């Protein structure tokens, strides 16, 4: 279980965006989180993905509290939670090929031959193998978002945070990527937090398990 307990978080000099939030993400299921723009959904996503330190409160990963003066998070904890953002373009290094983007988390962990795993991830996410050699500016938003999802799935995270993952995408690509994620839930028991302002999308994705803010 990945959980936020009494989390208060915000940005420098501003008011707290999250003021005492409790949310849990169980393994092997999709939990939806719906709410309007500006309600703090993305801040919670960053806190749960261990990218942002809360001002107070705790994040608990499989029973272990993430803490420390400098919020230093052990590597195995960091790779336990993957995240996909709404906009794929600012989320990638424009100088890397798609293959380098997808394999980066594997190379950081010292994998020598990530090639086969990247090919497998491309196939799972419906990314044409021929596109792996291209640069981000040579592919569409939908193709780049498939690569971002493949990158998030590369270290086999136990939890996946999808923050408006399909906000820029057309209906067919949306349905396809949601299927990829629910496939991980079924096969690897991944716990997913699906964040969106679109409740009908979340109901199709998470059923009745949708938190409304």
């Amino acid at each position, binding site marked *: 279980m990945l959980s936020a307990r009494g989390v208060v978080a915000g940005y420098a000099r501003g008011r707290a965006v999250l003021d005492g939030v409790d949310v849990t993400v169980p393994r092997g299921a999709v939990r939806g989180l719906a709410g*309007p*723009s*500006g309600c703090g959904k993305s801040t919670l996503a960053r806190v749960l993905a261990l990218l942002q330190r809360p001002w107070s409160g705790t994040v608990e990963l499989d029973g272990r509290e993430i803490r420390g003066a400098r919020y230093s998070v052990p590597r195995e904890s960091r790779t336990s939670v993957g995240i996909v953002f*709404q*906009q794929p373009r600012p989320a990638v290094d424009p100088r890397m090929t798609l293959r380098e983007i997808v394999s980066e988390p594997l190379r950081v962990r010292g994998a020598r031959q990530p090639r086969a795993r990247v090919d497998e991830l491309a196939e799972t996410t*419906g990314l*044409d193998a021929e596109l792996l050699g291209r640069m981000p500016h040579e592919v*569409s*938003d*939908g193709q780049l978002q498939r690569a971002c999802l493949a990158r998030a799935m590369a270290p086999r995270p136990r939890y996946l945070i999808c923050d408006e993952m399909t*906000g*820029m*995408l*057309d*209906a*067919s*690509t*949306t*349905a*396809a990527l*949601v*299927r990829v994620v629910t496939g991980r839930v079924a096969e690897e028991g991944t716990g997913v937090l699906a964040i969106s*302002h*679109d*409740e*009908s*999308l979340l*109901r*199709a*994705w998470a059923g009745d398990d949708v938190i409304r803010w």
Partner: protein
Amino acid sequence: MQQSPLLWLDDMSVRFELGRSRGSETVHAVTDARLRLFPGQVLALVGESGCGKSVLASALLGLLPANAWSRGRALLSSGTDEDVELLAAPESVLAREVRGRRVGLVPQSAATHLTPVRTARAQLSEAFRELRGRADRAEVEALARRVGLDPDELDHYPHELSGGMAQRVAVASALVAEPPVVIADEPTTGLDRPLVERVTDLLGELADRERGVLLITHDLDAAARVATHVAVMYASRVVESGPAAEVFGEPWHPYTKRLLGALPEGGFQPVPGHPPALTELAELEREWGCVFCLRCPETPGVAPCNGEPRLVEHGRRSVAAHPPC
């Protein structure tokens, strides 16, 4: 409707020639588009990303890059002004008479389209000076109110505006010269649902007796909300068009059916496979005729495919390759 169309597209095609480093291939971005935009209509042009929708808009505004060429006809015909053949008109005519004056553009992600170091008021006033000769404070504020902006909000810089407010500034800018045609290119991408609804409703209100709106979007909910008419594009071609309620209510082309079936409320099934590469379309069409058949395993059960990619008219509707039985 007995009026004549504001915009009249016949056999309009757009091609991009890729350089030798990319295999000297030709991208078929738009092929034989045939569309009519009448006053009072919101015509939604929908389809998956990369099907050629935005290229069609860019071509109408003369904003194609240098390696593109177009053929066919796109006639802008409004009011008392002389007709302009948009695809053949020189840049001087497009810049002085068409863009902003006779065709307004509402761009995608307005927040990044606005100049970041100037207030919304400064930018809107500049559009007034350029298009109407002077920027009267009361007129600028009246236009702001019309699109649902509080005039005080005009004194904000773009980064201080929410996505919805920035989008309304963009709509106001497009309306400064009261153009008879407004082209909105993905105006709602990245906005949340209440804002999508406000922006689309605003576009709907623009379509009155004098004006027509061409709404380019992959958001089928937004299209269904305001469109009076819809054209569905697939792999560079319009495959189906007609009154929105009829096309969404009873789609004829299997691609339209599949696209609606990808919506959460339509079954949430992605269209199987991928759209063909736009560089391979000519070859695929020679071989297959209807290129959607490559993704449509059940074709014979849906409607008889005649393999002819051109639109066939049936009353108020048109459909390609799959005429209703």
